[in-house]
């Protein structure tokens, strides 16, 4: 079972600013090991994202992680919008690659309506990946909105 970032925070009460963090003996070793494990996973994520052999494969994976929740339906168009890409055709190669690589599952409901899911069952590192992306990554769509708002404001 992979340790998630939230579990790590909770385990050592890192978000409780009333309480002093004191680690001694075995607790300190556990803390170090957990932190090491998280860093290892992050490094693996870097490695895998940089070796995705598609121009937009890594971005598709990030946008999917940003939007993905177990019960939500994400379509190819949602990803296209999230990445601010004008034509869906530009992402076909990435979808195909990620599906073959088993990083995503695609449910083909109709010829055009495809539901995309992140395959976090087979790739448990995706849990941490999702957490990081959800917390810190702003999508091109969000950036566009922010830039637009900033431009509109006087």
């Amino acid at each position, binding site marked *: 079972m992979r340790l998630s970032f939230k579990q790590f925070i909770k385990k050592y009460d890192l978000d409780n600013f009333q309480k002093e963090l004191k680690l001694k003996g075995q607790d300190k070793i556990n803390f170090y090991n957990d932190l090491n494990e998280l860093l290892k996973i992050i490094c693996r994520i870097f490695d895998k994202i940089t070796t995705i052999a598609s121009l937009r494969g890594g971005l598709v994976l990030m946008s999917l992680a940003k939007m993905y929740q177990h019960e939500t339906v994400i379509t190819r168009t949602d990803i296209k919008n999230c990445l601010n890409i004008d034509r869906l*055709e530009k992402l*076909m*190669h990435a979808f195909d*690659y990620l599906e073959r*690589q*088993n990083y995503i599952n695609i449910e083909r409901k109709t010829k055009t309506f495809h539901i995309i899911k992140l395959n976090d069952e087979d790739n448990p590192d995706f849990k941490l990946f999702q957490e990081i992306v959800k917390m810190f990554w702003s999508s091109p769509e969000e950036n566009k909105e922010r830039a637009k708002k900033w431009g509109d404001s006087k």
Partner: protein
Amino acid sequence: MGGFKIMKNKKNLGALDFEDDLIFNSYSIIRSEFLLKGFKQLIYFFIVLVIIVIYSIIIYPLYLRPDNDIGISTLQPKNFNFTINWTIFSIGTFLIFYIIKVALTRNTTSLKEYIKHEISSIGFKIQQQKKSWILFFILNCFSILYVFLLELELIDFKTSTLTILKGCLITYLTFSLIIPLLWLFLYDRLAVKLKGNYKILIEPYFRILKKKIKEYHLIALYLRSNKLAFRFNKYKERLYISIAENRWLPRKKKSLISKYGLNLFMRFYEFSTPLNLQNQFLNIVLALQDWEQQLN
């Protein structure tokens, strides 16, 4: 593992480049080579087919047509019709399937050279496995010998006690043809021998029909390790899952056998494109190393 081998950059190799937009040119080169190869194989296919048809329609009936007073053909090579028929049938069938396989496999000259170059630059040696030919040769020699001895009447199945032996012989004849064919389709691929029994098979794939969508030209390379262990060994299965998860290796192959859990053995699979072949190849090699180390 075959050490570091520097290979010459051949003319074909220079044409292939999978960076960004250049992939479309490379795809066109590979595709046209594939079609040319398919056309050549089609010619071979028809040559083999014509030989079989000429034999069965023109030559074979001559053996059967009586041309003397005894009522048999003088052209008949003794009584070895069955031996000759079986030889032509088995070799013809194998050749036809071999030609079909070669025509359908997406191994083109320049792609093969590209893969060889990529693999050799990380210190491994790739080879085209052709064990089905050896297997076919050995099994077929024995099957021809059996049929020959049968026609010479040195083997006689008239007594009832030898019925089982007769059944075995028929089974052997069938399997002597089926086994090399199965081997041909399952194992005769580009292979990289690693250490001991460890090896990785590489199978390229790309679409032949051009798509309207310009960006959609994925050239895929499927990597597959040798059999690792029996699927129902729980300890090894846990180890397998842990390594596959840590290295982000796809665990489910999209074949019907794997989909319905009928695959009895575990293997590592990896998916790659020409651009990231070295990385993905090393990933599966290191997964095999992890497997060996953690097992011992």
